[in-house]
């Protein structure tokens, strides 16, 4: 309990520092917020344009698809704010040989790199995602309280998948030093989570649900709110949590490897 309290205090301090850093370059902060918002909001806009032209995903209304994409956007925003920074922090530290500065601190290396890279720049993106989410919810049948709770649990699990992805990406940067293309590969795979899962072939559905469970980021929480989840959504929790565990283990292993091989 004492340890958790200490880690929460450190995290609070990191948030304070992130806020102080962001306010140092105010214009950069506002531009970042706007650019991130515009960049990710274009995607739901395309969905609207597709539906307005008469096309669309069979069995899914425009607001249902927007609901999936807004949840995906909010999840991405929260990930960017809280833990995605570990990828660039690790990549930079390994390349510059600065990881020692984190290793000499009496806290978990993975935690401190995540906490120190807390970023409030994605707050604009979160607001954008939340706005689309609200508009979608207004235009869809209201879910019951139990559905909200289930969707909330799946949304958190989706964040676990995002964290697993971030850790896998960060871990690879120990081996493939300075490979800035790695995130693009993971981002492409993550893109499957933005769409209704049943529009994909069965093999893709299995991969995105059980092997690389990106469907949990947007699709499954939205499906619960829409009453379309079927029986699979809770089974999918297991590979999601295993995915996160694998990411943590791999990251820790790579940190130990760094300590073992560096000169």
């Amino acid at each position, binding site marked *: 309990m004492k340890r958790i309290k200490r880690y929460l205090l450190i995290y609070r301090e990191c948030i304070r*520092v992130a806020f102080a850093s962001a306010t140092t370059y105010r214009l950069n902060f506002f531009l970042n917020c706007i650019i991130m918002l515009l960049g990710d909001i274009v995607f739901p806009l395309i969905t609207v344009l597709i539906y307005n032209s008469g096309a669309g995903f069979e069995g899914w209304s425009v607001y249902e698809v927007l609901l999936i994409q807004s949840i995906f956007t909010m999840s991405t925003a929260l990930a960017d704010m809280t833990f995605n920074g570990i990828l660039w922090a690790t990549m930079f530290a390994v390349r510059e040989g600065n990881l020692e500065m984190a*290793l000499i601190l009496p*806290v978990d290396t993975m935690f401190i790199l995540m906490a120190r890279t807390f970023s409030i720049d994605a707050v604009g993106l979160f607001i954008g995602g939340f706005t689309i989410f609200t508009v979608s919810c207004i235009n869809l049948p209201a879910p019951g309280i139990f559905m909200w709770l289930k969707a909330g649990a799946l949304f958190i699990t989706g964040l676990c998948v995002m964290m697993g992805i971030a850790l896998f990406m960060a871990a690879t940067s120990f081996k493939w030093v300075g490979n800035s293309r790695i995130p693009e590969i993971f981002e492409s795979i993550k893109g499957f989570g933005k769409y209704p899962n049943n529009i994909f072939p069965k093999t893709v559905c299995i991969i995105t649900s059980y092997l690389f469970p990106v469907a949990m980021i947007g699709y499954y929480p939205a499906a619960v709110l829409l009453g379309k989840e079927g029986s699979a959504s809770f089974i999918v929790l297991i590979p999601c949590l295993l995915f996160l565990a694998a990411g943590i283990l791999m990251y820790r292993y790579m940190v130990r490897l760094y300590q*073992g091989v560096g*000169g």
Partner: protein
Amino acid sequence: MDNIITVDKLTKEYMTYKRGSSFSESLGAIFRRKKVSVLAVNNISFTVKEGDIAGILGPNGAGKSTTIKMLTGTLYPTSGSIRVMDYNPTRDRKAYVSQIGAVFGQKSQLIWDIPPVDSFKMNKAIYGISNKDYEERLKVMTRIFEVEDYITRPTRVLSLGERMKCEFIMAMLHQPKVVFLDEPTIGLDVIAKHNIREFIHEMNSRGTTFILTTHDLEDVEQLARNVIIINHGDKVFDGSLKELRNTLGEVKLVQLTLSKPLNELSIPGACIVERESELSITISVDLGVIGINEFISKLSDICSFTDISIKEMPMETIITHIYKSKEDDKQ
């Protein structure tokens, strides 16, 4: 005093890639890279006593930083053992690092965009320092360093010397028992160096043990009581500063400004080591062979001079001699 650090047969070997600089070699490296083994630290043993200031010296690539990294627990040794305050640095890393501090002259713990005081608060949370202790320690250290005015300015606008002082405060806030300094005065002007050395002396007088690696021999002369010299991963000297000075025997350098040129010097234990000009020469005098009084007396008999100064053998000369003699031994 008890030993606070005990290093026994420490070795660090790692693999790296080697490739040439030509186009064909770069092209070839896309498909196949040549792996080479680097023996950064080779079977070194030493101890450091509690309350000591120990200097680790060596040329570039000697293995000093690798040794410091292993001592701080951020690198695993290939073999050998390290005990610092009864901790194994790599096995008990988290508990161990809460008891030590580190300043890396070429790496910063400070957060670039915000004032140092915010970085200090971050370390306060990380090390779990109470508000009372934090305020007290910060007050003492900012007074010693005279940095009260600029710890509230963004780090990026501070000079290197000001930043380095803040790095020291950052590393000392949790009152570590042992502090590792990796080239702490690199790039600093004489005043900043002086301030930092004063600070190290002050903290050492309060009981903190310091281990420092440096290229700056003045750091060693003014700070260290004991010196370890590493070259090509091997320990080539381990002893007190006095023992280091006497490595070449008890030798003094006598600089003379002559009235008339002197062609030869026939005093036992003395020889001309440098002729700056016809009337300006430097003589080395081995005090084991001839006393300084006797030397001056004999010198007055054979020549007349208008100025004389007696100096210690420069540390550079001693260390260069140690490096070279060990390399010659190997060959």
